[in-house]
């Protein structure tokens, strides 16, 4: 109060809008500082994103290329069909170990015919160039068509992961002195065969559609089967979490009385949304596998576990979407004589649908990227090997999931698996990105504002 009288004698401050006084300068300065910090924060975020994406693309893009060898293989009846009766049961007794030398002989013939000079004169010394998967490829072809025995058939087989790594620049000549899986002479031969057009790189569709391979055959591993595993899990999540979540939130939001009990439920749902996913994994192990005796490693169980994890997310977003529908809509419906249920199902729910779907898709995307709970129900390991036969079998036959497969590859010894882990991340990101884009499109297209 006395301030007014004291401050009266000092010079009148400039009130001009053109001349900026010290205080305004300070305020402006702090505002531009804040803006700069904001831009800086966004800049750091973008820089990290670019770094992350470029690392992923740089490390992973090579997984979509693979090295192949064209080899004519003479299907020697003396080796494959010792009894000479072309009987399938007898032919099956010739294992892949019988076929491997035939392929090595075939490759040696190619080397000789092309006139390539090499120190490797025995067929066995070419073993390191050829993937172990080739023998099974040839054997499957013979079992499918025994009449091929005795002929020379052209095969396009996989090169070993070391040869593949050499052509991709991962395996360097300087580093292989201690490596027993490839030698300098074999790399020289690789170069010569490449010039002759026998060894060539091509698009690796088996990586996208194929099954997992064992630790000794990095070149054969694909993410296709675990992709199916993820797909079946998402079906389970969608079929269970969406109806249960929507029903629960409609009841809580529209019908339930507001009292301490519903408050308690509400708090618990929010808490559940924050529970670490590994907890749901332990729950799934003890309830679904040990108590309910559902099969291990099955996408059905994985889907049930992820349903538990996704439910709170869907309930929370559904309730928010229902809340966003203005009360006037409900009042109008009730006013013309609709029952409470009619007002909800005919008017409120359709209007809240875009929000519900967005929440569901984001919940699904979260579940798709989840690895931790799957560790406990047996979906991590050498699991994704058989393509399920039929729709129902897909739910119960052992399978992995995309993030679990990536985790598994990242810890294997052969560096070739590391490249595949990055490639798997690219595919997973494409899925997540497209799900989020669908969510955004749905929201843009159907969202109504009041």
């Amino acid at each position, binding site marked *: 109060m006395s301030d007014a009288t004291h401050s009266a004698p000092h010079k009148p401050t400039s009130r001009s809008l053109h001349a900026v006084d010290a205080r305004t300068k300070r305020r402006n300065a702090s505002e531009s500082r804040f803006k700069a910090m904001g831009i800086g924060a966004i800049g750091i975020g973008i820089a990290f994103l670019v770094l992350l994406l470029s690392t992923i693309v740089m490390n992973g893009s090579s997984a979509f290329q693979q090295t192949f060898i064209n080899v004519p293989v003479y299907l020697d009846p003396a080796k494959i069909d010792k009894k000479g009766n072309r009987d399938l049961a007898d032919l099956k007794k010739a294992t892949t170990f019988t076929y491997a030398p035939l392929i090595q002989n075939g490759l040696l013939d190619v080397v000789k015919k092309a006139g390539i000079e090499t120190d490797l004169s025995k067929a066995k010394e070419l073993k390191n160039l050829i993937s172990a998967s080739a023998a099974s490829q040839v054997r499957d072809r013979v079992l499918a068509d025994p009449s091929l025995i005795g002929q020379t058939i052209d095969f396009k087989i996989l090169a070993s992961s070391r040869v593949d790594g050499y052509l991709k620049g991962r395996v360097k000549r300087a580093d292989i002195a201690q490596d*027993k899986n490839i030698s300098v002479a074999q790399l020289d031969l690789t170069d010569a065969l490449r010039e002759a057009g026998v060894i060539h790189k091509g698009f690796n569709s088996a990586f996208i559609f194929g099954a997992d391979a064992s630790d*000794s055959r990095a070149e054969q591993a694909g993410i296709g089967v675990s992709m199916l595993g993820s797909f079946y899990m998402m079906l389970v999540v969608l079929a269970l979490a969406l109806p249960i979540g929507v029903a629960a939130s409609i009841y809580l939001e529209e019908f339930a009385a507001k009292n301490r009990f519903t408050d308690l439920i509400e708090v618990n749902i929010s808490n559940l949304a924050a529970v670490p996913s590994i907890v749901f994994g332990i729950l799934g192990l003890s309830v679904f596998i040990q108590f309910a005796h559902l099969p291990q490693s099955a996408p059905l169980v994985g889907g049930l576990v992820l349903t538990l994890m996704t439910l709170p997310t869907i309930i929370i977003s559904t309730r928010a979407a229902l809340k966003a529908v203005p009360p006037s809509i409900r009042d109008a419906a009730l006013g013309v004589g609709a029952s409470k249920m009619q007002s909800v199902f005919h008017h409120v729910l359709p209007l809240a649908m875009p929000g519900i779907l967005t929440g569901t898709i984001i919940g699904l995307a979260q579940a798709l990227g989840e690895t931790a709970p799957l560790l406990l129900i*047996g979906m991590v390991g*050498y699991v994704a090997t058989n393509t399920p036969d039929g729709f129902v079998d897909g739910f119960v036959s052992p399978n992995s999931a995309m993030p679990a497969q990536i985790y598994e590859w990242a810890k294997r010894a052969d560096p070739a698996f590391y490249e595949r882990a990055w490639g798997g991340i690219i595919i997973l990101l494409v899925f997540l990105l497209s799900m989020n884009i669908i969510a955004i499109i749905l929201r843009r297209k159907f969202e109504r504002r009041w």
Partner: protein
Amino acid sequence: MKSVTLTASAIALLAASGTAALARDNIQIAGSSTVLPYASIVAEAFGENFDFPTPVVESGGSSSGLKRFCEGVGENSIDIANASRKIKDKEIATCAENGVKDIMEVRIGYDGIVFASQKDGPAFTAFEPADLYNALGAKVMKDGKLVDNTYGKWNEFNANLPDADIMAFIPGTKHGTREVFEEKVLEAGCEATGAFEAYKAEGMDDKAASKACMKVRTDGKAVDIDGDYTETLARIASNPDGVGVFGLAFYENNTDKLKVATMSGIAPSTATIADGSYPVSRPLYFYVKKAHIGEIPGLKEYAEFFVSDDMAGSDGPLAQYGLVSDPELAQTQDAVANETTMQ
């Protein structure tokens, strides 16, 4: 209401399909992450050559595999546990309590444990178990007395070792590899340096003294790695002076990044491990539930195929990957064929 019935029917449908498929037709295997690569190689070849589906092989460690193995008999429990150590009496007792009585023990071969540093890092060419004990043990002998370990560099106790800071990445306690490391390296080194006798002089009995020998220093120079060898590799890559513990197969796949250390003058390889001159190795096992043979299709065929000459022999794919094949493989083959169980 509609959605409620829909949900109920969906659950019923899924539950029905789940129960229907309970008759399991694939072999379930879990256990040691050291055995996993070998088991996966066999499983893959088994799926290709037989009319049975490819077995499922999970990892998780020897202990967790044997725990699941001993949970009981039936389609809901695993058929085979992989282990990088022998089954313990305690585990056999747990198994028996839960009805798992007849267990077949199958030794598949030997695995070498190697010490390696960064490719451009210091060369460790004069390791003896004593050096590793001096570097990593909790208490070491100095001037004839047992004192807390304060060594900072390798050349402080062995002039032939490089002038580099001690930094070792050793497997965590959940790994079977840790036990081999404790027994064959720490305990051996403890006895060689005389620390074992010094512990006993303090009034400990043999058991307590060897337990004290296996204690690792806790001042941050020995780091437990609970993850896989890939994690150890990453730690080595960022620590120029670091030494890590790896399986032989893992090292052989990453010779471009790692420099291997010799032990007592011998470099690890399948040959030196097979003839016993490289000291740090251990047998690998898998355990089969005999009650499941005949119930789970292909179980016995898988076990026989695993130890067959084609797979586990010295020319087979397992040896190619880094397994040291068992000189007594023929006996193992007979035991599997006769379904001999543990006594």
